């Protein structure tokens, strides 16, 4: 199905980004962006996970294979984790995955890790804008 996605010439290409947000901080931060009506690009689709520690590297690879142009993973700031240390586990894990992606020939910039707290609606929007910009510059993902 994904292969059939075409863009009309006149339309500017915008990346499709999937975001895994932890329920307690980043998802709440994304909600706050909404409550505060802070606008950001609409290319992002959010998947709620209990904790950034839940995000398996497979989710990321699967997403990129499936045609998402970029992935965002966001959790609580270090020390703020609702599950005490889940985000630290995630941090350790994602330190490696960028190298792995590069090895596969995928631009590491497609996968963005970030921290956003429940009070940082503004920051969430800024980070999404930033990620969108980076991924947009990288262009559409290569199909596997």
């Amino acid at each position, binding site marked *: *199905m*994904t292969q059939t*996605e075409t863009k009309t010439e006149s339309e500017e290409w915008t990346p*499709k980004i*999937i975001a895994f947000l932890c*329920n*307690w*901080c980043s*998802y*709440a931060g*994304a*909600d*706050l*962006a*909404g*409550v505060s*009506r*802070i*606008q*950001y690009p*609409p290319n*992002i*689709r*959010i*998947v*709620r*996970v*209990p*904790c950034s*520690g*839940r995000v*398996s*590297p*497979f*989710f990321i690879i*699967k*997403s990129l294979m*499936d*045609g*998402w142009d970029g992935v965002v993973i966001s959790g*609580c*700031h270090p*020390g*703020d984790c*609702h*599950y*005490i*240390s*889940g985000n630290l*586990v*995630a941090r350790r*894990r994602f330190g490696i995955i960028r190298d792995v992606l590069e090895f596969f020939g995928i631009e590491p910039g497609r996968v963005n890790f970030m921290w956003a*707290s*429940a*009070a*940082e*609606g*503004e*920051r969430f*929007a800024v980070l999404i804008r930033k990620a969108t910009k980076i991924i947009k510059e990288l262009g559409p993902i290569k199909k596997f």
Partner: protein
Amino acid sequence: MEKIGAVMVVGAGIGGSQASLDLGDAGFKIYLIESSTSIGGVMAQLDKTFPTNDCAMCIVSPKLVETGRHQNIDLSINCEILDVSGEAGNFTVKVKKKSLYIDPDVCTGCGVCGQNCPVEAIDLFNEGLAKYKATSVKYPQAVPLVYAINKDYCIGCGICLGVCKAKAVQYDREDEIVDINVGAVILAPGFDEYVPPEGNLYGYGKYKNVVTSIEFERILSASGPYAGKVLRPSDGDIPIDVAFIQCVGSRDYSGVGKPYCSSVCCMYTAKEAVIAHEHMHQIEPTIFSMDIRAYGKDFDKYIIRAQEEYHVKYIRSRISSVTEIPETKDLRIRYETEDGKILEKDFQMVVLSVGLNPPDDAKYLADKFGIDLNEYDFAKTDIWNPVQTSKPGIYACGAFSQPKDIPETVTQASAAAGCVNQLLYDKRGTLITEKSLPPEIFVAGQPPRIGVFICHCGINIGGFVDVPEVTRYAGTLPNVVMSDRNLYTCSADTQTIIKEKIKEYNLNRVIVASCTPRTHEPLFQETIREAGLNRYLFQMANIRDQCSWVHMNEPEAATQKAKDLVRMAVNKARNIEPLNRIKLSITPKALVIGGGITGMTAALNFASQDFETYLVEKEAQLGGFARHIYHTLEGGDVQEFLKDLINKVKSNKNIHVYTEAEIEDVAGYLGNFKTTLVHGKNKEKAEFDHGVVVVATGAQEYKPKEYLYGQNDKVILQSELEKMINTSDDIKNKKSIVMIQCVGSRNEEHPYCSKMCCAEAIKNALRIKEKYPSCEITILFRDIRTYGFKEKFYREARKKGVLFLRYDEDNLPEVSQEDSQLKVKVTTARKDTIYVNADLLALSAGIISDREENEELAMMLKVPLNDDNFYLEAHVKLRPVDFATEGVFVAGLAHCPKTIEDCISQANAAVSRACTILSKDEVEAEGKVAMINVARCIGCGMCVENCAYSAIEIVEDRRFGRVASINQALCKGCGACSGNCRCSAIDILGFTSEQIYAMITGRL
């Protein structure tokens, strides 16, 4: 009089919320009464919290949501107490629920009224820094999220009535007066911050760039008026040099401010300085302080980090004036240094660390509830039990009785709850009603029949997203058998519709596309459960907070996104299965480890609630370190208190005391522990089951190696001096006594403050001065940390002629012996070197933990220790007596150095937390937990390491050998194990990989 199984909690800040949750969980009916329009109090205003820099909103909002939704908590906002009658066990409180002019049951908190209100007024939550409307909510994450009309500003134009799609606005809504019958009352009204009066020397109110610390807190806050940018109000520039002036309105004997120390300002000032620098690296904070009172757990480390990592500069000085430079609006501070120089420095902004005052209505509340206030108009409490007011059955917690920080407030809240438990334990569960639910429909294995409900949310979604189109689209998705749209899916009538549709279409999965699951998922889950569906057969698509609201200018893209989100939800829903919540039976018995004041208090509290309690003490006799303390600074007779306590413990039939005991093993988990120990001279073995554990193992006094201790018998410890004062006459002929503070504290080996030594030194000094006024006493200190009302005694000591000399950490006093004369050399902050002859040198030795012992027990209980080997609680701010491991609690010195009263509070708090478990026959665990596919597991143990809750262990499986096993009762479902599992052997129910893949792949 009949006792009532209900409790009123007055004030819904963090303290009130915690007390309500504890008691609500323990089976009491709670009436939580709040005077403002939303709960959360001051904590919800904060940006970050010390000493962890935790985001305040992140940690408090789940708690507030829980409070707002708890089925045993009846929350009333905008209330006023009118009258109180009755006595402990049975009070009647007359409460006025003031009209919000908006029906709180109907208001969905969408905010359209506020946006359209043409009358601008000041926003109190942002401390006057932003304007809000006559119809407003206190802050975006408010609980309950209900708007209110401020009639003082409202001109009655009626716009809000028109724009409110939910029809919640009711201008003729009247105040409601109700009589509430409760067994006990907890007062948690918090504090009001000190506002510098007109003509204050700091220029507050006159100069725009002089703000109070609470205002600065809002400036720092990401959800504050400046969106977390640190700007100065005069011109929106980022200030470079920011001065923080401490003790504004505190430790002030001039009569303008308050004489006591507000306890928290040193820390929050450091925090604000650190966060300001963190937000804007160009900011260079300078803090003007007298003493730095970082007496709490890990506080000193924070101050050090502030100085070293964040370049926060400390100047020890009370400033003499602040003047504005009119052209730049900069502020010139004139101050005197410790060595007597008068200096001037310009700052772009000045933050006043204002003190904590008793709440404005303290006298009113005291009068209504018939309790006494102390000399400062804070609630007067029992010297041994800091949550007990002068009236039985009425308890106070938090800053209402003395300025205090969040963890102490939370501790006291639980402590007050612990006392209520003790008072009303036999009335648990008498006033709460359990919902009767229909049996669950069996749906496993059946093809999904999905119903999708799409919410217009008035115009909040419908105004930007083409809801009919999304509804049509949803109807075309696989397995979707019905899709419908509603004006407000969360309204009561829609719940009925959902239930009807479930029946009509035989739905076995339900999706609501509306706002955020964080606030609304439980509501819809409840609805489908009432219709007979398992509550996990529900999915939510967030098309408001994360779609329509953030793409208001791109309606087409927003519609497309909403469709995608609905499709992703459908894809997940097709893969979800009913989940069961595991139920654990509870053994209603408690184990308390440690027989000091803390342990005994806890044990007695448990026992008086008819819980069988095992009290384990390693020494031959009960009493712990208190056996060496004679009085408290405030004058309480410790020995008498202790004697009484020991007698009560010994005579209580519910308490089994084991002395000279050594725990060999604690096995099991929440509700089902089994402990084996040996005790007594003969090492008898004992074994028993229990549901909870309270760790109250205490700490030890540091045995100094410095200052000739142990080499010269004129060098003694403060505790030894205290014994001398109280049991002998040896002081009589001492002309000069020198005390050295911070011996074995705040140094490299023990980088923390032992909290009690300053009070101890002043206590002893005052006792000596009382008996022998001519005795010269010199106290060598680094900072005098007589926080709170203890400040009074410091002042008294100075008045009585006790000499206080400050020394620096890098210039420690030296003690030498010349002949028989002890000589103490000290270099003061003024760089003068002084020699003092001492007839007696008392060392204020710190409190240290017993590393080996603690490590051993921590291992058994699967709980962590901190760097200083004190036990590490689950959360520094909000779970001060809990461990991450459920069913295990900590209290007293085992947690960190603290006073006797604080130990007692923690003991009661631990009991209260434990009662949330013990009061039930069984507890229900979350259904969304980890699950092991043993066939794939290779037993590497990675997951065991990653689990913060010690819920995983490696076991021997008959077929597969060494594999991981999950204790679902302990698992919180975070998924850290699963994400790291190299064999993909772990999955998280409710968030299975299959479900998430379905969301990923269902993009088009």
